[in-house]
């Protein structure tokens, strides 16, 4: 109860900071879809406050509004008063979850995907193997070709295409626990293999490890580590998120390292928040703080320690899409741009509305496909205007979403993680 009261006080403090100035409206992707105040951060703050004070009920409209929000935190960047809106929205989702009032599809996904599959690396890999078998045996193509899923719904057919392609070899099975660079050792870093990244973005991980060791860093990939829990926390599954966070803290603190390098923006953002979610916790508060302080997003890391400037030039037009959890949550915006520009010959074209969410937002594009697609269309229009060959982005969710949008709209553009861009340049050099 004591915690509940302090939480209430905390939320009240956030609420009281809001000046109702409305500067969060023009940058809110959902407000801009329908121009309704209740779909803006300012409106949602009022709704949440009223529900907490029992002036409003946890109605269907309220629940819908809370899940209409992308949790992209663009409003936190725009807010003059520093209102931490993300904490409010996630708390309200916890409240909804406690009462079991979320939409059916979300409830289903949470139960199977978040609570059961992703809470165990073993189960994640088993699920990935099944998906891989399906994707490899030609059945996937057959299903897409035949339009079989259209029989159920057009949306199911489309959502099915948003699934990541599972890799032949999972990352944690490909690499040993410790990888040493050939020459002098500049430092030692721990590396998060993650959940989806581990099975579907092995190539990005491989590039990251390559660039790390090429730059003289010893890489440790602790065994027994689990999913970071960000998807859980963003969807009102705070207990699962905490369970995973505790596990990671316990696993990583057994190792000595200078930094915990993470190549997925969503994960690094949430792992930096471990401090907050364990604040006041007897057993974990201090340990979470130490853990969070070591977390470095990979472009942030290389911006601090310096990267061996690649010598070969790379004559391509590149644009940069800012992942919400990089720019809005972690305020990392300058670093990836500087890294990209340090490659000789590269032309960095600014993407209009680069900090605007792409609509991926974790599992948002599955749960709210229609809204997500409207937001994606805006992004694709902006991407098209740059005429770039490559769009660089540092988050797996954005990566998949942009790939899907580019294909859907017939654009000739490649999606790349910044670290893969470096790997490519290194590769061309050798």
């Amino acid at each position, binding site marked *: 109860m004591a915690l509940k009261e302090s939480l209430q006080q905390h939320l009240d403090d956030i609420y009281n900071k809001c000046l*109702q100035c409305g500067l969060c409206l023009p940058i809110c992707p959902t407000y801009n879809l329908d121009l309704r105040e209740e779909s803006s951060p300012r409106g949602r703050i009022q*709704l949440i406050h009223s529900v907490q004070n029992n002036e409003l009920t946890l109605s269907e409209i309220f629940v819908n509004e809370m899940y209409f929000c992308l949790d992209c935190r663009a409003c936190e960047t725009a807010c003059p008063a*520093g209102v931490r809106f993300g904490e409010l929205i996630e708390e309200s989702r916890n409240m909804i979850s406690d009462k079991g009032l979320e939409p059916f599809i979300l409830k289903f996904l949470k139960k199977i995907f978040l609570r059961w599959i992703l809470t165990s690396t073993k189960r994640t890999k088993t699920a990935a193997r099944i998906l891989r078998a399906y994707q490899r045996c030609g059945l996937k193509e057959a299903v897409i070709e035949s339009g079989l899923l259209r029989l159920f719904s057009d949306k199911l057919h489309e959502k099915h295409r948003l699934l990541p392609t599972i890799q032949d070899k999972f990352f944690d099975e490909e690499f040993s626990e410790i990888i040493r660079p050939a020459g002098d050792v500049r430092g030692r870093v721990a590396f998060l293999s993650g959940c989806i990244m581990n099975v579907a973005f092995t190539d990005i991980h491989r590039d990251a490890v390559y660039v790390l060791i090429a730059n003289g860093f010893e890489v440790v990939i602790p065994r027994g580590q689990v999913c970071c829990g960000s998807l859980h926390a963003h969807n009102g599954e705070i207990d699962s998120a905490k369970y995973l966070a505790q596990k990671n803290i316990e696993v990583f603190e057994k190792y000595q390292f200078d930094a915990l390098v993470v190549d997925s923006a969503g994960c690094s953002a949430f792992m930096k928040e471990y401090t907050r979610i364990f604040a006041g916790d007897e057993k974990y508060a201090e340990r979470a703080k130490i853990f969070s302080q070591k977390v470095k997003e990979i472009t942030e890391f290389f911006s601090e320690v310096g990267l061996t400037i690649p010598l070969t030039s790379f004559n391509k037009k590149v644009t940069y899409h800012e992942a919400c959890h990089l720019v809005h949550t972690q305020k990392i915006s300058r670093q990836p741009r500087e890294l990209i520009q340090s490659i000789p010959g590269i032309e960095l074209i600014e993407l209009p509305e680069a900090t605007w969410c792409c609509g991926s937002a974790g599992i948002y594009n599955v749960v709210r496909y229609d809204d997500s697609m409207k937001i994606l269309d805006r992004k694709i229009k902006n991407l098209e205007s740059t005429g770039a060959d490559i769009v660089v982005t540092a988050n797996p969710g954005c990566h998949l979403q942009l790939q899907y949008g580019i294909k859907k709209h017939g654009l000739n553009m490649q999606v790349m993680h910044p670290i893969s861009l470096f790997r490519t340049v290194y590769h061309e050099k050798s």
Partner: protein
Amino acid sequence: MITSSITKKLKGIIGNDNVFDSPESRLAYSYDSSPINTQIPDLVVRPTTPEQISQIVQLANDEIFSIVPRGSGTGLSGGTLPSENSIILLTNHWNKIIEIDKENLCVWVEPGVITANLQADVEKYGFIYPPDPGSASISTLGGNVAENAGGLRGLKYGVTKNYVLGLEVVLPTGEILHTGGKSVKDVAGYNLKDILIGSEGTLGIFTKILLKIIPKPATSKTFLAFFSSMEDAARTVSAIITAKVTPSMIELLDNTTIRCVEDYTHIGLPVETAAILLIEIDGKKALVDDDAILVHEICRKHNATAIKVAQDEIESIKLKTARRSAFASLARATPTTLTEDVAVPRSEIAKLVSRISEIGKKNNIRIGTFGHAGVGNLHPNYMTDKRDKAAFARAEKSIIEVEEAAIELGGTITGEHGVGLYKKRLLEKMVGSPSMIMMRKLKQMMDPNNIMNPGKIFDLRPKCEGPLPTEREQIKKFEEVAWI
């Protein structure tokens, strides 16, 4: 009371999808950017044509309910807050720029166009639309005209009223009125346009607006001048004007603001500085260069301790950061920040500043002041916590005392935020009885049933009022509000 039969009729006029009656929707339109809370509106409607608005207005006259027009809801004086028995009428979705007329230097816009969007659009063709209120990124032009919004560039370029050429308005009795037009000269009859500008939604709803645009200045130069006394800074402002230089902006930051800005942005401002002036000159290059030398000289003569001149666009943006972050920096420093808006003749600016700081000291409240010194319009920010009743009361007392000081100095209680609900209490004291009578008569004549944003600017009959509700607890709860 909005009965179900009224709701049904409204749905008949604008369709079911454009009438929002859920408690959630209504709650979201119960506030604006002012520090006042009133009550939950009975309904929210989103008409799409002037004819629909006309029909809604006629229905309001027949059934007697009030209409409160609203754009983005960023007003600072409570102009879009619902009154008793009212519906909120939205215009923010009406956001097309209809025509950019490069020959006649004007644009036709719908009322929901965002100020910054118009600015960005005309700039593509080498024009500017100068009025730039602090909320330009979200404020609507309809709201700007209704409040006669100002901004940073008022010194050289004036305020919204200087740019309105014509209006299409739905009157409180339902007629659709057209006034003004593209003719630069037009003296046919009373100037009705100017009565409607700044009428704060009490005399009609704008459905189309014709605005003047001007050629974009070729170049500009930005200065930051630091002073060890407020007196010196104020005298510099007067000296620049007397020297017949008209900068596009002269902005002032006081010591409290400087400290808060530095705490928040760490841009390296000297925190001991008593005042900073941000000065921008624009125009043809030769002229700007000449004026720049003059301004530099004047600042030096008036004991500026340091002067920074931006060498390029990027540096200019850097210098402006101090001013642009002023509001955010003060807002972050305390739980509640009340932004005020007094104006005096610019010759009185030094006196106003010292009166503000005296009042702050006397009432034991921290006040950070910044604003448009070049036009004598300042924003004292009262830094308090609305949950601390005693502190909040001291802030409210200070606000009234500062407003009274502005009146004494020959100024006004509001330079650009409007009267709305927030400033009603002092309007009569400031403008005097004949003006009040005329305003009331005008309102009664144009809006005989008092259905258009009633109770804003003034009450029809003078009446005693207690303090305005600032807390949720003070306002009507859902159960008590009549809704279907």
